[in-house]
Each structure stands twice: as C-alpha cells, then as structure tokens.
C-alpha cells in the first residue's frame, strides 16, 4: 500500500514543524508543486535549500521579478549575442543551439538527476505569470520553437514555490499545487529558533525579549510587524550593548532594529508619551501567552 519514495525528514539547521514536513512529502509523492505562503521572515526561501540538503539533491532557484515572463524560465534565445557574433565573426552563427540558454525551469527538466527547483516570490510577477507555466508544470515538458526540440523531464523535479501574498494567484494554478501556510512561530518554537542563533542566552533576558517582541506584534497600529530575522538582529544588538533583563522591563531599546517604518516608530513614541505601559510578564499579554 505505502509506496516508497524519497522522503524529506528535515535537517539539523532548519526547525520545521511536522505538518510542514508532511506537506513537503505530499508534494514529492504527488509530483506536484508545493506552494508556500507565510509572513516575510518565516523561512520560506530557506526551506528549499534545506529540502535539497535533506534529500541530497541539487538545488536550482528562480527568483521572480516584476518583469519576469513565464517563457524566461524555460529558455531564452539570445538574439543579441548572435547578432554580435555575426557582426564580428567571433562565433559560429550557423548553429542556433549555441544561442539557446535554458532558464531555471528548463535546466531542472533537462537535468539527468532529480533536482529541487525553487520558484521564489511568484507573486512578484504579472498576474498571468503562473498561468503561463501551467502546462509545463503539469506535463514537465516543453519545446524549443527555434530548434523544434522537446525537453522532457527525466525525473520530475521537486518544485517549491513561495509567495508573499502580494497578489492573488489564479485558481487554475492553485488547483495544481499542494499548499502550506507557514504560521508565525509560537513562543515555544521561537525559543528554539533563537537558540540556534544565540545559544546560551540568559533565560530572564530571553523572556523579556520575547514578551516585548510578541507584544509589539499584537499592536494593531503597526504597519509592518517585526519578524523573526528582526528579532535575531535585535538580540544581537542587545547583547553587544550588554543590556540586562531589568533594563528591558520598562523600555524597548534599539527600536530601529525592530520597526522599519517611520510611522511605526512614531506610533510607539505616541504610546510612550501617553504613558503607556510595556508588559513585563507573560500574564500582561493576555491568556494566549500564559505559560
């Protein structure tokens, strides 16, 4: 009943939740792309690198930009190079194959062994972009018009697609994906994550840091909530300055490492001026955080 296939089990450098591991394996088994969504800074992109490491495969990445076209991922016909070569006689112009360059998706299909392909920030591109790739991702093949060759994937690549939710993705595209939403880490998971970056942190300091951090994230006025990477930076700054947990009780120093928008810093200054209190115990954050 249970078919055998290569399974991802996580790596020491990446703390993945059970459901995430399951979703990765489901995508591998079904041969469908895995769509990853989640707040910025929750490790969507890093996951691909660790999936590749965990499975012992090569990784190819395709970073999508607002000007990226679906066809770019398959191949590009470098007309300008060919024109230049013909002008200066620097290359053999007669062989058009020399001017066909495979894009990341094309390389993934053409590769002899199975690879992990990361399509990063798919929502950056035009709305139609995912639709342009439907057939290629379904059948894992495409043809090069200029040479009428067909590239067929020998091994279905493991495709991971990340989205920051800047645009809605087309339904037809979504239907073909396995979906996982990386939730923002809860306090327990966050302790583990911090421990990877700052081992042996003073427990009382860590408590104060996390209380302030999760309190900030609860504030509705903020336009950009601080993320994990910003928390890690903030702790670095605190350690560098030799801050103790007592100093943190009533203040949030180095606010600039946590809040990146002027309006947000202003909002917090307003809060200061209104003599707003910062929480110092988990109980101050409400029942969700009772430890």
């Amino acid at each position: 009943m249970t078919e055998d296939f290569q399974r991802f089990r996580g790596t020491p450098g990446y703390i993945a939740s059970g459901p995430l591991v399951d979703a990765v394996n489901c995508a591998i088994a079904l041969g469908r792309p895995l769509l990853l969504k989640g707040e910025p800074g929750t490790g969507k992109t890093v996951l691909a690198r660790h999936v590749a490491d965990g499975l012992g495969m090569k990784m190819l990445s395709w970073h999508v930009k607002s000007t990226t076209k679906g066809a770019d991922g398959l191949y590009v016909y470098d007309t300008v190079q060919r024109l230049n070569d013909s002008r200066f006689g620097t290359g053999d112009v007669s062989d058009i194959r020399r001017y066909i360059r495979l894009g990341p998706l094309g390389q993934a299909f053409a590769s002899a062994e199975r690879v992990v392909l990361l399509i990063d920030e798919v929502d950056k591109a035009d709305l139609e972009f995912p639709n342009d790739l439907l057939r290629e991702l379904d059948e894992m093949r495409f043809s090069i018009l200029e040479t009428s060759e067909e590239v067929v994937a020998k091994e279905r690549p493991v495709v991971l697609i990340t989205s920051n939710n800047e645009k809605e993705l087309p339904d037809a595209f979504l239907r073909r994906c396995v979906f996982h939403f990386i939730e923002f880490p809860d306090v327990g998971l966050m302790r583990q994550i911090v421990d990877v970056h700052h081992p042996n942190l003073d427990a009382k300091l860590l408590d104060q840091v996390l209380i302030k951090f999760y309190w900030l994230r609860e504030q509705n006025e903020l336009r950009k909530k601080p993320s994990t990477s910003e928390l890690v930076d903030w702790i670095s700054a605190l350690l560098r300055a030799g801050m103790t947990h007592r100093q943190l009780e009533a203040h949030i120093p180095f606010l600039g490492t946590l809040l990146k928008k002027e309006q947000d810093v202003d909002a917090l200054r307003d809060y200061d001026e209104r003599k707003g209190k910062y929480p110092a115990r988990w109980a101050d954050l409400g029942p969700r955080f009772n430890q």
Partner: protein
Amino acid sequence: MFLDLFYGLREEGVPVSLQEWQAFLTALEKGLHGSSLARFYHLARACLVKSETLFDAFDRVFLRVFRGVEGEFGDDVTEKVLDWLRDPKNFTELTPEQRAELERLSSDELVRRFLERLAEQTERHDGGDRWVGTGGRSPFGHGGEHPTGIRVGGPGQRRSAMKVAEERRFSDYRTDATLDSRSLRVALRRLRQLTRTGVASELDLDETVDETCRNAGEIELVFRPPRKNDVRLLLLMDVGGTMDPYHEPVSRLLTALHEERGLRDFEAYYFHNCVYDHVYTRARLSRSDAKPTADLLRRLDPRWKVALVGDAAMHPTELLEAYGGIDPRVTTATPGIVWLQRIAAHFDRTVWINPDDARTWDGTYTTRLVRRLFPMFHLSVDGLSDAVRALVGARGQESSARREPG
C-alpha cells in the same frame, strides 16, 4: 464520510475541485497520512485548501465531519477510504465511460457546457440525460445522480451539486449582465496611467538605429522600459440594506471593472454601511471571508487608487461611535469614521461613488461627514468619468472635480 468533507467544504465556500480531491485520494493511497488523524488533517488541508483565509472554514467542516471519529479510525484511515472507494453504492448509475468523462471534466468546462445547454434549451424539461431539468442523469439540473452536476434552483436533495447555480440573496455583485455596461467601460477606459517605469527591457528601435549610425555602424542597442498601465485600483463596496435598490448599477460597474484587463492590479472588497475592522471578499459578508482592514493599509502602498461605492447614508452612531456597527455578529471598538480617515490619509487618491441622487447628499448628516474625507461622485456614466479623472488626472483637475458635484 469523505464525501461529506468534500461537500461540506464547498458549502463553506472553499473551492475544492475534483482535481484536488483526486490528488488527495492519491495521497491517501500512497499512505502519506501515516496512521494519525492529525496528519490526515494536515494532508487534507494541504491538498484541498489553497488559502490561509479558508483554513478556518476547513477547521469547522473537519470538526463537523470527523467529530468522535478519532478513536474509531486511529489506525486504518486508508482502509476506510479504500472501502469507500470500492463501495459500488457511491457510483451507482455510472458506466465506466461516464466515469472517465467525469474525470476529464474540470469545473470551468462544466460551467461552459452548462451555459451552452441553457442557450440550446427553450422549454422546461424533466428526466432524460441531456437537457437541463430535474431528475435524470445530465450533469445539469437538480435532483439527479450525476456526482458533479451543476444545480439549477430547487432543493439539493442528493447534495450532488458541484456548483450551486441558483442565486443567493447577497450573491456576489459580479454578474454577467452585459446589458449596457459598454458606456461604463468607455468611462473606465480612462483609468490609465501609461508610464515607462521599471526595467528597460524593450528594444527602442529608433534610438538603436540612431546610436548605431553614430557609432559608425557598430551595433549599439538601446533599451527602454515598456509602456504599461500603472493604475492599481482598490474597490470597496457597500452591500445590503439601503444599497439593495442599487444592486443593478453596482453589479454593472463591477462587471465592467472585471473586464477591464488593462489595470495593473485590481482588488475588490465588500462592507456593510461603513468600513470597520474588517472588509469581506464576498458580498455575503460571512466571517470566513473577512480580511482585516489594517492589513489592506499595510499591504497596499499609497499609490493605489481607492474607490468606495456606497450611499454613505446611515445612522450617525454607525459612523461615529465605538461598537457602532449595525451587524450584531461584528463588534468593533474603533468607530467607522476613524477607519475612513485612515483610508483617506493612507492613500493619495480616493473617491467615493454614491448611487443616491446628488441633490440628496447634503440632506444627510453622515453623507456630509463622508464628503469631507472623500471627493464624492454620482454613480452614473458622467459621475464615473469625473471620478476616474480625480483618480488619475493631474492634481489641478482633481481639485476642480472636487468642487464640481457640490
């Protein structure tokens, strides 16, 4: 039991397609759920639900369908699924050919064929397996046995409707009413700001020839960014209550906007009477469709154009007081006017499109207040042209437009 999950999800507005359902069954066959209900849950969610905004709906359905099941099938989910698949009862009346065809049908295909049938058919029809009607094995109509059929009105006795084609009370304002939306489209065509911004990726042929000549025949390529419409539009629509009489013109506006392919980005949300903490992706304003308004402000930068469509006429408490929202399901501490102020302050260009007769605007206290925040235009072809000019025109034009409707 498993079909209950499928239909339950669709009833809660999670758009699960046959394709996804099959992927899910394949995953079960491969034993990916292991032996725990929790992993079964995550597997189902990963395969069937494609947006985190629908997770809540999924949870509710899952709880309802699998309540008390944990002990019962801790170990052998697979067996249960396969038993179900083997059970011929679930596929009565289906020949292998029909099943094969069923698998080929995607839901878009179903809708298209449904519309074709409707066009062909001229009279009421019951039984048989081709026409839209009741009974029978055609995928269209209701009370029939085609598992993916489209339901046309009537009660869904067998719950075999893949898409409920009958209209709901607050059906989404988007309709296919094409009658006379042409003039609206013409007005909207001005919703354009063609700019050459971004990466230079288009070959500028004239400049290239020019530069190459200057370069004594050595090829010198000149690139420029392509011309693109840079307008991103956020539409916020009032539904229900006093807006009901205006359903027709508003739906025409929405149809026209959906057909307007040129916009760089377009998002539409619904609200009731006034914008509060949440706006809704669908006109029925159910909680599973709610999006925090604060998220919109965070996510959309000030260059987005905002058009609010509503009559702005409400009880003053609904606009001005905390917990003023008329909907008892939603309690909100922030008064509506504060949210409106935030929207007006965040975005550079905003307009309010009001379906009420312009002469009545000054007679309503809340309309006067809203007009201080947003330039207001009448929902008519002329008013819309002015609104579009206020959104994308030069600044001077905008201020003249601001005075015009008064």
